[in-house]
């Protein structure tokens, strides 16, 4: 058992057969690849939902906050201490619904975090209402006449906002998920990994076999072609799996922050500068 798995017997509260289990395994494998030395620096920031419970089932630092708000917290954690490995994780409702505004603006910041979204196209924890990625026409308890809105397209939006790492995987394809997650966590900059997965309890349309039939793995795709990536993201018949787009070497948020220009020490190790403060006060005399 790896350092990233809880030692005490943890009762994982997901439904048997849920796609969250293989995602968890893939995440552990990603974490193991960071080495156990990294452990004290690895921080999960999550919202609320089935997906967002993930860090409770790992052996990691975590801040399990509010539904929809993980990205705001994650961004600040990274700003306050750029040496942390920050992973924001949650469901499609969490991240693209309640958290939609943070989604679009966190991408704009190009903050160096890994963003894992469990996309089961449904609200799981609240028992089966439409999520932003639910397909039009889907019948749910709140949409008994079918979902009206068009599904949210997280990848196309991320590409539109200049994201430098945009990927999609499927929980059932663990080797792909693992490898994409590892690339994402090593990417310097905001990295989106949208992980499709079945919700066996509530999503009776997008089942495991539906995903198998409606996805394909990217091969020979030029990951430096943003427009090509966008066209892929806009495909509706079948969803491509893999890395859609990546761009290395773009400065990240903390590269621009004045307080880190000459000194990379995290904020918690610093004290206010007494002399400067006194001088500032004196400037009001």
């Amino acid at each position, binding site marked *: 058992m790896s350092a990233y798995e809880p030692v005490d017997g*943890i009762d994982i*509260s997901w439904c048997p057969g849920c796609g969250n289990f293989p995602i968890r395994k893939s995440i552990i494998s990603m974490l193991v690849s960071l080495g156990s030395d990294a*452990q*004290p*620096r690895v*921080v999960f*920031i999550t919202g*609320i939902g089935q997906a967002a*419970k993930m*860090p*409770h089932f790992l*052996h*990691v*630092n*975590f*801040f*399990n*906050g*509010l539904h929809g*708000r993980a990205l*705001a*917290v*994650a*961004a*600040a*954690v990274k*700003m*306050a*201490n750029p*040496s*942390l490995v920050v992973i924001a994780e949650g469901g499609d409702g969490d991240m693209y619904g309640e958290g939609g*505004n*943070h989604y*679009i*603006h966190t991408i704009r910041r190009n903050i160096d975090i890994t963003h894992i979204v469990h996309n089961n196209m449904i609200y799981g924890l609240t028992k089966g209402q439409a999520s932003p990625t639910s397909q039009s026409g889907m019948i749910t308890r709140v949409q008994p006449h079918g979902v009206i809105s068009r599904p949210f397209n997280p990848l196309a939006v991320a590409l539109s906002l200049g994201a430098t790492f945009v990927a999609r995987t499927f929980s059932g394809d663990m080797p792909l998920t693992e490898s994409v997650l590892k690339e994402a966590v090593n990417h310097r900059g905001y990295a989106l990994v949208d992980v499709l997965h079945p919700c066996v309890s509530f999503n009776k349309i997008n089942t495991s076999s539906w995903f198998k039939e409606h996805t394909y793995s990217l091969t020979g795709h030029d990951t430096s072609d943003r427009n090509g990536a966008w066209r892929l993201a806009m495909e509706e018949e079948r969803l491509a799996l893999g890395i859609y787009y990546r761009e290395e070497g773009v400065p990240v948020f903390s590269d621009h*922050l*004045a*307080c880190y*220009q000459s*000194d990379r*020490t*995290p*904020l*918690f*190790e*610093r*004290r*206010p*500068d*007494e002399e*400067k*403060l*006194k001088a*500032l*006060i*004196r400037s*009001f*005399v």
Partner: protein
Amino acid sequence: MNRPYDFSRNEDISIIISGAAGQGIKTAESLITAIIKRHGLYCFSCREYMSRVRGGLNSTQVRVSADPVAAWRDGIDILIPLTPDLSRLDHRISDTTLIIGDPSLFTEGRTGIAFSFDEAAGGDGRLYNTAASGLILALLHIDFSLLSESLNERFANKSEKIRERNLTAARAGYEQGGALLRDGTVTIALEPSPAPRSRMIVSGTEAVGLGALAGGCSFISSYPMSPGTGVFEFLSRQADAFPLVSEQAEDEIAALNMALGAWYAGARGMVSTSGGGFALMGEALSLAGVTETPAVIHIAQRPGPATGMATRTEQGDLNLALHAGHGDVARVIFAPGNPDQAFRLTARAFSLADEYQIPVIILTDQYLVDARHTIPPWEDPLAGYASHIVETGDGYQRYRYTESGISPRGIPGFGRGLVRVDSHEHDENGRISEDWRTREKMVQKRMKRLEQLAASAIMPSSHGNPEAATVVVSWGSTLGTALEALGKSGAEQIHYLHFSQVYPLNPALRPLLQRADRLVVAENNHTGQFADLLAVTFGRRADERLLQVNGFPFSVEYLTSRFTRYRRPV
């Protein structure tokens, strides 16, 4: 010759400059107050302005005195209207008001001295304010050299031409002012002294900002909202000199969640907003509560509901500050009475937040943040600074039960332990718990600290006669006005208490309130929110509530007239 205006017996001169947004009234205010202080007089200034960028009608009050002065007066001694429009000031003009400006204004019994800003400014509308500054400083017997120095400093980076034109306009105003003194039209006799010269002129905004730095603030995330934006701007400007991250959040919800993230990672985060922005932060405040994450929240109040009056003042968000967030959340609320308290309490907010792992709210208002006071500089600003973060070891428990309810706070990346913070009800390890016994213990744990916080809560400052039958209470920005009114109405019949900490309240207060024959609470809101808080805390309902909700602060005149009534026995 004009009618003589004799202000020689005035303890202070209340000067109002009015004009449209964009005419540089604020610039004039900061220019002349600095010079007046350098000259050796005290001043207090405050603006009232419309929610627009150009046009409309705004004004700034500058009160000048040989003694400290710290309150808003309705009355106007000298009115300097840069535009010939008095519509929004008419009720404040009396027959002793000297108007200096366009003679078309001298109607309806109003008198004054004709003055053409346009002429003094050489026809340049942008220089009216400089001309007015010259005029005012001359009337105050202040040496022109102080003004020319200041102007040269201010325009050091501008072209020679700009500097020259400003100096010319200033001189034109100055000379006319001097002439009015010399020919006896105006008499002003304020004696300068050295004391003010070593003081600062500081606004509430600046004081909160400086206090934040003294409290070790290293992170500010906010979304602009008047009148809370000033603090955000002030701290943003310090982000290179101090270890400080400033980030404009996409909305207020993000702002407070970011501040919590910053504290989680070991920084000291703050947000600055107004009531409407804070109304969006309730859920995050609740998150601070359940996760025991510190936070500092500055709310500069303005009249609501909703957009209300964006640039006016009110004390209407106390109830919201007290009750925002769902579920039980321990918190502290400070309400500084002036910039000095604003500095000290903001610094203290960071210490308390860190020590008690709670959100601390600083409740100011437009009146306080915009007002500028002449006060002594703060020595030893970091005296109260301390950090309570612990290095974690193996098996670290973020929510370990302790006597006080407060568990040692670790942060990720400092020590070998893991820091698990959770918004559900949780056990000592931060794991989700649905055990009802754990629930009960955790609620107790989180709320227990309120007792300690109450026991050590700052007592109100006490003024007037502690034996008086009438006890007058006020809080926050009303301090200066109430004190001046107290002095003017005769302090013997009133025991005045000013609260700079409004929650929790110290139990030691009970006898102070209980002994009152007449309890009067003065506050700038519609219902008397603090009076309600006193009633629910101590079971003592106010006998009288002095309330005001018109967008202005209490004036010295109003409170004086009210206080005067308390000379009569209860």
